[in-house]
Structure formats: structure tokens, C-alpha cells
């Protein structure tokens, strides 16, 4: 069983960094049975990812946000965790520079869940009255309202 990394953005980056030491035979996983059947080349793989998966789960506009190299790196990082797909030796991991990695990190931060804005909900006090005093209070209010000065 191949060591499986995570999809969470921070962990993905970490897993990517650690994957630099993975030998060049390390390739992307079999994404799913469907992908394994349909994908025959890198282009197909990218299209498949873009159209079928990434565009939905993480809607990346690769032509706008990421260069092809970054996109490739992202794809690799995201799917590194799966079982190796031995027939594909398509990613040149070393080609992704530190600079691209930072950009990648920035880009990926967009796919986080909505940023939290932590606030505290102050606990409200609900003090129970003595029913008799409550009755008297309403009575008093009623009298004031009826006979008090306007």
C-alpha cells in the first residue's frame, strides 16, 4: 500500500515538498476506475481532471490563475496520494520551482472552506422571576399606564 497523503491545502503542499524525494518513477495515481479506463495520455488526464473533477471540486481556471506548470504541479500534489499508476511517468517533479510552489500555495488557499471569522456569542441571562412578583409588576405597570401622568 502506498503512503497516502491528504487533500487539505496545507497538507497537500507539505506532501508535495516531501514528495520531492520520491523517485522519478513516482507518478500520479489511478484517480478512479473511470479515469483509469479513459485516460491514455497526459493531455487526456489533464482534461479529465479539469472537466470532470477539479473544475467542480476546486474550480481552477488554469489559464487565468495558474501556469501550466503550476497546474500540473497542483494536479500532481492533489492526486499523489493514490496508488501509483505505473504506466504514466509524466510529471517532472523537479521542474516545479520554489517560486511556483509559493504561487501554488497562494492559489490553493482559495479552495479552503470559507475563512472563519471567529466571534463569541455572549450567553444571555434568563433570570426567572417569582411569579407573584411578576404579577405585581404587571399590575403596577397597568395601574401606572391607566392612571399615571401622561
Amino acid at each position: 500500500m502506498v503512503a497516502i497523503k491528504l487533500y487539505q491545502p496545507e497538507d497537500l503542499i507539505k506532501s508535495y515538498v516531501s514528495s520531492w524525494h520520491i523517485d522519478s518513477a513516482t507518478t500520479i495515481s489511478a484517480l478512479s476506475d473511470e479515469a483509469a479506463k479513459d485516460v491514455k495520455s497526459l493531455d487526456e488526464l489533464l482534461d479529465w481532471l479539469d472537466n470532470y473533477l477539479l473544475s467542480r471540486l476546486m474550480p481552477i481556471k488554469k489559464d487565468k490563475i495558474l501556469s501550466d506548470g503550476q497546474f500540473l504541479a497542483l494536479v500532481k500534489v492533489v492526486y499523489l496520494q493514490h496508488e501509483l499508476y505505473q504506466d504514466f511517468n509524466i510529471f517532472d517533479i523537479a521542474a516545479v520551482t520554489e517560486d511556483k510552489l509559493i504561487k501554488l500555495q497562494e492559489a490553493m488557499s482559495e479552495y479552503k472552506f470559507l475563512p472563519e471569522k471567529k466571534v463569541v456569542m455572549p450567553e444571555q441571562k434568563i433570570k426567572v422571576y417569582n411569579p407573584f412578583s411578576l404579577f405585581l409588576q404587571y399590575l403596577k405597570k397597568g395601574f401606572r399606564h391607566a392612571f399615571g401622568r401622561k
Partner: protein
Amino acid sequence: MPLAASNEVFVIPLLSRRRVKFRRIKLFGLTLLTTFWASVKWSEFMPTDISLFMHWFLLILFFLTFGWISLYFFSAVFGFLELVRKRHYEGIKHPAKDAELNAKTAILVPSYNEDAAAVMARVLAMAEDLGKYSEGKQFDFFILSDSTNPEIWLQEEVMWFEAKKQFPQGINLYYRHRPRNTARKSGNIEDFCTRWGSNYKYMLVLDADSLIIGKTMIQMAKLMEANPTTGIIQAPPQIVNAQSFFARLHQFSGKVYGRIVMAGQSYWQAWDSNYWGHNAIIRVQAFIDSCGLPVFKGKAPFGGYILSHDFVEAALIRRAGWLAWMLPELEGSYEECPPSMLDFASRDRRWCQGNLQHIRILISRKIHPVSRVHFTVGIMSYLSSLLWCLLLLFGVGIVVWRYFFPPAYFTQSKELFPSWPIFNVWGTIALFVLSMVMLFFPKILGVLYVIGKGDKQYGGAGKLWQGFFVENLFSALSAPVMMLFQSKFIVEILSGMDSGWKTQNRTAGTSWRDGIRMHWWQTAVGVGASVLIYNYAHTLFYWMLPITLGMMLAIPLSVLSSRVWGKKSKQRIFTIPEEVHEPDILQNSKRNFKQLEQFITDKDMLALLKNDIYVSVHIYLLAINGPMPDFGSDLIKRVQHKVSSLSGGGDENLSLDEKRYLLYDEKLLQGYAVLCK
């Protein structure tokens, strides 16, 4: 910060305080006058040979139960008059037609072990509807899961992933699963508010079975924008998608009579309206500042977390000076109804406990008087059953007592005149008839209003009256059954039994086995009471028959009414316009359900874990959910041992708790997922 710290700051140009006060004086004045008058009459009509204690006891019971009917009657009558006058709901400022919407609204969908495909199908249908409008981009959806069943949890994530692909551009769909469902739904909403709430100006709180059309959601947000002092706007939900006889009956009565009741409530409550926990838009900052619910001292059922949080939140937001509106004119707000009497009763058990818990808040400081009325109404909706039950019990008891202990006509020796016990039978019958009129008249008004509007989509006037008679017949027979259920619930709650938190059944019917298991005691009470009355209080036998018959027929009533009767047609009984011309959003929700359900045809966790993408989606989402709950070292070791000893193909021999832990342990899960293949 709230815009106003006290009620006095508000100036509502469209509806003066004096007018609202006058409305309330009219409604409660008439209610009290009628109740006092009827109580005096009842006091006169009661048997003269009962003890003073019994006299007052019965009088108080009568006063409370009659007062309850009376309030319902007058509220409905005023509601009917409002509808006939076609008045626009006054007080709230309506935005201009071309008003822009720039504020963000979060649509919250709390879910607790619900059918994941059905929930997501509804969410997708709402998003699609919102997507038709440019303002739709101001809305984001949050699925706030409190599901404890790991299989449903995983299904929800799969549904989120699949539905997200089809979501309209610009509308986000987020999913969060809460590891610990502290404080149930109120805790779920609070968790959202404290983590993401400040990103939004408004939140539209839904239930798992809620549906609101996009136009109405936008209108609600615009209304909030136009009324900066408003904290809550409630869109009364209408029951739809009913299939069983029971649910369709409630759907019909909600549609035909409901609008009169709503209009009546809106008439006197104005800006002091209530919040029903769903299908309402809330100002997030107002909610954060004023609705942090306390935990009551003591154990459940009266202590602990507040169960029916909605009424309390409405009272707290009102206490903080914000206004709360209920606007029946907001159409396209839907919900579903429990399919059977047993499911209805199961929901009632929770609500009953929640409402009785309100007794503490009812008499707490600084609560607005109208909020106190809301609490009282909620409490009385359950307590009235027990009061009615006691009234019947003591009424029959007096007659049975007289059988065994005949009245002593001469209590002293050598008494010249006998002391006749007097009981005004005809007077009592007149009061009974009056009560029935007050109960049924609002329903008649409902039917007349629909006929008057000339709406043909109910199947015509004949079908409407037919529906009215069948509904009343069923209500009359089932009311004693529900009375016994609710009385039992109150006794259970008072003796300290907690309701727990069960998932609501929304589709399945009742089997004969369940019917017998749950209703045998009501049947036994009905048979026992009939035998007792026939033998020892024979004069009451036929008067009590509608009540005892309902109890005796509890099992078939419950089972048969949970079934689907008759084919879909425009001419069948209980037809409502939404069945004749099904709104787009309902059609789309059904279509989405069929489509989404395909992804989880095999609902088993094992089957879903075979899909790498779903495993990855789950792991991706784990980071959002928060820390894992404490499972205990024994359970963890047990799961680790079970998974490590698997030889392949997965294993179903994991309990729900073990599966739940597995979903939190990423490494173990990944290993398990590989072995599942």
C-alpha cells in the same frame, strides 16, 4: 451592535403602536369576556352535589380549555376579516421593485441523520431557482450536518461533492460536519455564527425538509435591507409533497385553514411575532449579540440545553430591541409533514418537552409580554390536552361516583324538604355546542374564503366541502388519540424522562405491528372507558362515543392513515393547487433527487469507500469539521485491531460507533479503503 437598545426607540411609521394595542385589546378582550361568560354559565350548570373543591377544579379546567378555543376562534375571525379586506400586511416597509441587493445571505441547512440525497436535491433546486436572478449571487448555502450515523455522514459528503458540480456559478455550497452535536440544532446554528456568521449580514435558516423559492428568498433579504431595525422575518411554511392520507389531510388543512390562522396571528402580533426555527431570515449580528442561549441548571427535561430554541431566540432578539415579523404574504415557502400519526406524535414528544421547558422562561425577567404570550400558546398546545383529559376524566368520574354513591336527598333527620342535586343538562349541551362552533367555524371560514376567491385548483367547491367533512371526521376521531399521547408525554416529562433526539421519519408508513405496539394502550383505554361508561354512566355513553370510538379505532386509524390512498388526480379529495400545478422548485427537487440518489444507490459506507475520490473528499472535509470527539482508547484499539486483521474486501463487522471513529482516523481509513476494493 443592535440599532436599538429598548423597544421604545422604535418608530414604525406604517403602523402606529396605538393601532396594534387596540387590536390586542380587541382580541384578548373578546377572548376573556367570552371565556368569563362561559365559565360563569358552566359554574351555574355544574352539578350542585359536588364538593366545593371539585367545583373550582372543574371550573379552572373549563376556563383554561375554553379560553384556549376562544383565542383560536377570535384570532381566526380577525384573520379572515383581514384577508377579505385584502389588506397589505402593515408596518413593515416594502422595498422598491428595483431595489438592489448588496448584502450577503447564508442559507443554513441543518441536517441530522436525514436522507442525504433528498436534502441535497432540495438545496440544489433552491440554488437553481436563485441562479435565475442576478441577486442570487448574494447567497451561499451551508449544509450544517449534525449526523451521528457515519454512513449518512459519508453520504452527505458524497452528495455535497456531486451537487457542487451542478451548482450555479457564483453561489457557493459549503459542507460542515460537527463532531459533537452539542445543544442540537441551536448549537449547530451557533457554531456557524461563531465561525462563519460574520461573513454574512443575514442568515436564512431552513430545516432539512424546507424549500423556499428563489424569488421569496431574495424578497426576504430585501425586506431585511429595507427594515434595518428588523431582526427576524418568518415566512410561514406551507406543507407540500404529502403522499400519505395523514400528511395530505394536514397539507389540505394547512392550505385551506392555515392562511386564516396565519393572517390572524400576523394581525395582532405585528412586529412582535414569533420564529418557528426554520424558513426565516435573521440578522446575523443581532442574533450573535442577543441569542446566545444559556444552559439551564439541572437535568433534562427541564434543565440542560434549551430544546425548542426558536421561541426563545425570538424572545431574546425581541428583548434586545429588534423586531420580529411573520409575513403570510411571503409565498413559496414550503416544508413537509410527518407521514403518519406515530411520526407526528414522535415529533410532538420533542416539541412537548421543549415547550414545557419554556415555563421557566415564561416567568423570566425583561421578556416582552407578547413573547410571554407565545410561550403560553406553545405550552398550552400540549397542556390543553392534559387539561381536556382531566376534564373528561372528572366529568365521567362524577357520574360514575353517583352510580355507586347515590345522592342523599335527606342529609339530616326529620328534614322537611329533600335537597335535590341539580345539573343543567341542556345548559351544558349548549356550552358544548358553543365550543364546537368555535372550533369548526374558523375552518368553515377557510373553506368559504377559498370558494369566494373562485380558485378551481382545489377540485371545486364540492371537493372542498368533502375534504372539510372528512378532515373534521378524522380530526374528531384522532383528537382523543393525540390527547392521550400528549397527556402521556406530559406525565413522562414531569417524571423526568428525556425525549432524546431521534431522526424524523419523512417517508415510510406505519406497519400493523408498529400500530399495535404503539396504540394498544389507547385502544384498551377506549374499550375500558366504554364499558365503564355503558355500565355505570349510561346517560353519557352516546355523548362520549366520538371520544371513546376514536381511542378504540386508534390502531386502524393510525396504520391506514399512514398509507397512500387513491391515484393522483385533480379530482381526488384534499387536492391543493400545488398538486394540480406543481411549482417548478418541487419538480426540480424531485428530478435532482432521482439524479443524486444514483451516486449512493448502495448506501453502505463500504461501497462508498471503494471510490477514491469520495475518500479524498472526506479527508479534505475533515479539516473543516473540527477536532475529533473522544471515542475512548478501548474503541480505538478495537477498530485498529479489526482493520489491521482484515485480509481484503473490507469487513462489515464494525459497529456504527466504530465506523464513526474510522471516518476520523485518516490513516486507518485510507488503509481500510484500499482493503475495501
